[in-house]
C-alpha cells in the first residue's frame, strides 16, 4: 500500500497502489495537501492499481475534493475498476467527482 506522486506537466498524478482504507487514508491526504500548499492546482488520482476503497477512503476523497476546489484547483479520478465504478454509482459519488476511464482522458480533460 503506497502512494506514488509524480508531476506530468502542471498536473500532479497520484497512483494508489493496493488499498485506500482507514489505515492509510491520512497519508494520501497529507501528501496531496502538501502539494496543494506548494501551489499545485491540478490533481489526478489514478486507481488502476487499486483493489479496494473503504468508506473512510471515500471520505478522504470527498474531503480532498472540497479542499482542492476551495483553493481554486481541480481533482479528477481515473481508472476505477468495475467494483469501484459500481461503488461510486451505487453511492451516487459519481455525481461528486469527475471520473475518466483512462489516465490519458483524465489528463486531457484539465
Amino acid at each position: 500500500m503506497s502512494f506514488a506522486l509524480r508531476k506530468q506537466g502542471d498536473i500532479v498524478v497520484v497512483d494508489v497502489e493496493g488499498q485506500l482504507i482507514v489505515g492509510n487514508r491520512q497519508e494520501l491526504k497529507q501528501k496531496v495537501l502538501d502539494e496543494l500548499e506548494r501551489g499545485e492546482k491540478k490533481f489526478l488520482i489514478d486507481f488502476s492499481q487499486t483493489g479496494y476503497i473503504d468508506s473512510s477512503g471515500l471520505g478522504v476523497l470527498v474531503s480532498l475534493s472540497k479542499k482542492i476546489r476551495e483553493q481554486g484547483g481541480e481533482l479528477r479520478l481515473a481508472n476505477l475498476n468495475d467494483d469501484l465504478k459500481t461503488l461510486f454509482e451505487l453511492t451516487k459519488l459519481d455525481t461528486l467527482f469527475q471520473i475518466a476511464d483512462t489516465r490519458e482522458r483524465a489528463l486531457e480533460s484539465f
Partner: protein
Amino acid sequence: MTELQTVLTAFRDATGCAAAIWAEDEGRLPSRLAASTPAVGILGWTPTFDNGPPRLVLCPGGPAMVGSIPGPRRAWLVIGPAADPSVPLDTYVRFLLPVVSQYLQSALEVEHAANELAERYEEINLLYTITEILGRTVSLGEAAATILKEVSETVGARRGSILVHDRVTDTLQTVAALGVPALDVPPIALTDECSVSARVFRDQRALLVEAGDAVPCPAEARYRRGTMLSVPIMWTAPGGGAQPLGVVNLSDRASGQAFSAGDQKLITAIATQIGTAIQNTRLVRASLNQQRLVQELELAHDLQMKLLPRTEIVAPTAEVAARVVPAESVGGDLYNLFRLGEGRTGVMIGDVSSHGYRAALIMALVMSASAIHAQGSSDPGTMLGALLGTLREELASTEMFLSTFYGVIDRRAGTLRYANAGHPHAYQVTADGVCERLPALDPPLGMVEDTPGARTRPWVSGADLLLLFTDGVSDARDRFGIRFGEQPIVETVRRYRAEPPAQILTRILDELSEHTGAAVQRDDLAVVLVRS
C-alpha cells in the same frame, strides 16, 4: 584452644616446665589463650610483650622466657618457670615456637573458613528471604523497602537506596531508601553527569566510589556516606539482550571497611532478582489495565447494542429481523425502526464511515436524532434532510459521512417511499421473486449540502420484503481475501422469501459465517429484513 592446652600440659609433664600462650585480640591488651595445667607459678602474672627475639624475664615462680610467635596474629609463647632451675629454657622456646606457630596459623585458617562459611550461609539466607519477599508481593515499593533492609544488614551498610527507571520522565525514581525517607529523595535525570546512579545505569556496570571521588549529586548525598557501591538492576528478556531497569546503592558501612568483590557479586545477584520483580510488576499492571480495558469495551459494546431498537416495537404492523455486528467492540453501523401510525412503519439503515469509537459516537447521535426527526417529518427525504441538519457540523469536523437509507412502508396505501443517501445495498423483493435494487438518489449525508430527494414505489402488503444491509456484509472476506459479495445475500432472500424474516436472516448470517470462517471481521456489518 583445648588442643593447645593439651600440648602445653604434655610439654610440662615431659619437661617439668610451665608454658603459656598469650595473644592480642583486635587491638585489646594481650590475654592468655592457653596454659599448661596446672600452671606453675605463671597464673596471675602478666609479662610484658614485644616483638624482639626471645628474652629472659623473671616471673613470681622463677625465671621464664617470652618469645614472639611468628605468624599473622600477634601472639607470644611463655616458657617457665621450671621445677628445675637448670632446664635450658631457650632450647625449649626454640623447640616449641614453630610448633605453636603452625598450630595458631592452622587455627586462624579454620576460623577464617568458618567465618567465610557463615557469611555464605548468610548470603544464601538473604537470597532465600528476597525470593520469598518477591514471591508474595506485587507491590514494588513494599518489596524494595524490605529487600534493601535485608541486603543492608547482610553487608553491614547503614545507608542505601533502590532506584527504578521511570520511562515517562526518563529519570531514576527512589522506590526505597535507608537512612533517609524515600519520598524526600528527588528523582535523578539519566543525563545527570555528577550522579553515580545515572552513570551506572547508562554504563550498565557496577561502580565502587570512594568517599573523596567526585562531588555527590544532591539527591545521592542523602544516602551516600563514605564508600558507595552502586550496582545496576538488569533484566534479560527471553531471547533478548539485557536492559537496565534501575540501580541499587549501598554505603556507610558499619565496619568502615570497603565493599569487597564478594559484596558486589552478591548485590549483583540480588539486583537481577529485583529486575525480574520490577518486570513482573509491570506485566501484572499492564495485564490488569488490559483486563479493565476489555471490560470497558464490553460495556461500551453492550451500551451501543442497547441503543438499537427491539424489532417487536413495530409489530404487528411490520415483521422485522435485524442484526448489527461491530468489527471492534463498537462501530458505526446502525438500524432504526419507527412506528408512525396508520399502518406506516419507518425503517432506516446507516453506515457511518470508518469504525471504532469515533464512528460509534456519530452512530449514537444518528440514533437519537433520527428518532426525533422521523416523528416530525412524514417524507423520508425531509427526514434525512433534517438529520443532516443535526449532524452537519459533527460530520464536517470529523470528516465522516453517513450513508443511509430511510424508507416508510405504508401498508394501507400499498407504497414504499424512500430516500437513499449513498447507501448501496437496498432491495425490494417481491412475492414472485423479483429483486429490485433501490438505488441511491443522493450522495451520503455529509458530502453535499442538499436535502435528499425521495421516490415512491408500489408495495404489496404482507408479501414484499425490504432487504437492507451494509458493505460489511458484502465486503466480508474469506481467508483468501475473496469477497462474499451481494449476490449470495440477494439470492438467499429471493429463494427463501416466503419464510419469516428472522429465519431468512439466520440463513444469511450462516452463509456469511461459512464464507468468512476464522478470518478477521474487517468492517461493521448490519442486516435488516422487513415484511409489512
